[in-house]
């Protein structure tokens, strides 16, 4: 019996930035797998390489050394266009600063990834409605980002991340700009999505948030210092409340 192919595999991944001749090793020799259906918290102090790692998992950046595999394929061997298409279809990004397009309303923002999947306008908007519904934001479909609160904007951003039914949702400090109460709501949303089978990788500063994820990866100075999976599941209700 062979183990199912991990969704994501990192093998000895390093990323070195070179600015003005000075090399900064943002990520050093990191290896781990993420399986379908997992929810993973990535923790570590500021500057420890979390975002850099996330960008590589999300096909926005390539490792300097080592390899990232998405469903068994080395992403560095794919063409730039192919990686773009995979970002549209298989990756859902959620950012700390929401990153909605200010000049488009909620539903247009949510539908945006489908533009790059070649989906027609009618179908895009229909699917965007479903996605907005899933995050409880359908009633704000025609509002512009500036007319929404931070929590609402982040929900719209999550709807956008989900619209193409991605393999994995990558969230970089999704609650970092929110007050704790709204942050908890967003977190509950992620937990609920994960219960429905959505694979999620979430960067967070907040140890309280991390404890709600089954698995936590810790970085320090670009190195992986721990990769722990809780033996005991927390009662599901506590994640939602």
């Amino acid at each position, binding site marked *: 019996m062979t183990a199912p192919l991990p969704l994501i595999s990192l093998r000895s991944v390093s990323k070195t930035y070179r600015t003005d001749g000075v090399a900064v090793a943002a990520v050093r020799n990191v290896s781990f797998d993420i399986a379908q259906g997992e929810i993973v918290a990535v923790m570590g102090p500021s500057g420890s390489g979390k975002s850099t790692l996330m960008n590589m998992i999300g096909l*926005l950046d390539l490792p300097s050394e080592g390899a990232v595999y998405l469903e068994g394929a080395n992403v560095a061997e794919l063409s730039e*266009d192919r990686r*773009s*298409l995979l*970002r*549209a279809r298989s990756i859902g990004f959620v950012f700390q600063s929401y*990153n909605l397009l200010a*000049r488009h309303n909620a539903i247009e923002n949510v539908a945006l990834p489908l533009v*790059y999947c070649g989906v027609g306008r009618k179908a895009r908007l229909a699917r965007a409605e479903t996605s907005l519904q899933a995050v409880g934001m359908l009633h704000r479909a025609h509002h512009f980002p500036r007319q929404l609160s931070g929590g609402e904007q982040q929900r719209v951003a999550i709807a956008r991340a989900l619209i193409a039914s991605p393999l994995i949702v990558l969230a970089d400090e999704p609650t970092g700009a929110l007050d704790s109460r709204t942050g908890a709501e967003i977190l509950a949303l992620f937990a609920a999505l994960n219960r429905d089978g959505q694979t999620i990788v979430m960067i967070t500063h907040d140890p309280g948030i991390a404890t709600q994820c089954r698995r936590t990866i810790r970085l320090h100075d670009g190195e992986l210092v721990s990769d722990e999976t809780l033996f005991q599941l927390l009662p599901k209700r506590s994640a939602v409340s």
Partner: protein
Amino acid sequence: MTMLQGFQIALHALRLNPLRSFLTMLGIVIGVASIVTVFAIGSGAQLRLQEQIRSIGANVLMITPGAVYQGGVRLKDGSKLTMTESDVQAILEQIPEIQAAAGSIAGTAQVIHESKNWNTTINGTTTGHFMVRDWQLATGRYFSGAEEAGAGKVVILGSTVARELFAPGDDPIGAQIRIMKVPLEVVGVLDRKGPAQDDVAFVPLSTAKLRFLGSASNINRDSVAYIIAKVAADGQMAGARTEIENLLRQRHRVPAGQDDDFKVQDPAAAMEAQQGAIRTVALLLVAIASVSLLVGGISIMNVMIVSVTERTREIGIRRALGGRMRDIRLQFLCEALVLCLLGGAIGVAGGITLSMTVARMAGWITSIDGEAIGLALVFSIATGLIFGFYPAHKASRLSPIDALKTE
């Protein structure tokens, strides 16, 4: 992403800042409007010339008075009528290439029919005039031999004069009109030849001399103001011209070495030369207008570069959500194209308005042809592609991570 989506995104972006979009495309608007206007005025002028060339008739030579010497002083050309009816006769009889010829004198006068009157050119000539100019009658007849010889009180009207003097249902043939108190019977109405040509009334040369000229001092009874002659074939123009010159020098006893007291011209050739000159001037003006298009293109490039910088984060977001480099390039290229096309369309509308205004105010003929409009639009599309490419390319080359980090 498709071209259509690119245009949709572009329109959306441009609508958000209509004033800026308009100012950006202003150079294109002005450039295209000037090109369309210049073309309209230029081709209007050419049309008018062509009409004049056509109205003169094919293979026509025109002989007008030339230099006259009085006591060794050269007088202005045409200050004396040096051509005569006998010259016309001699040209017809002695030069085989000449098919028809006629002498004319002309002036302007009021033409009166009942309560209507109209000021027009009165041309005293012979039926040969109509032969030379290939000018057919719409109705009626030409002058008879007796009328030409005996100063018959008859008149042939150009279509404009007929229209002005007679109500639409009225038949002018047989009607009495008056010119300088002389009653004349209308015997013919000519075909239309063009607005500038049709405003005329013809009487027999003898009638004009006897009844209208009176005894003007510098008029010899035999004189004519000018002669027109038709050459049988196009290839014989130069030969016929030389023969006429030799014949007239001999008849007028022009001493060797002295300037002719007449000029033989080929009006169609002269006008064609003029037409060439108009074309050259128009092309020059179009070239100048194109500079405005160039400036417009640079202004679009400039604004696009600023826009790419301002929208770096949007570019990062689009890249993260799956936009390929070529999608980003297409998006910004579409913006430049929409700006240029919109500017071009406004420019075409402005150019049409401007040339129609010029036509009305200056009384020029202008002609707007699809070719000029097509050319202007092709120019604007080319401008959009050329000047939009660099900013679009720059946008597509941004690193998505860096783009996402910008504020």
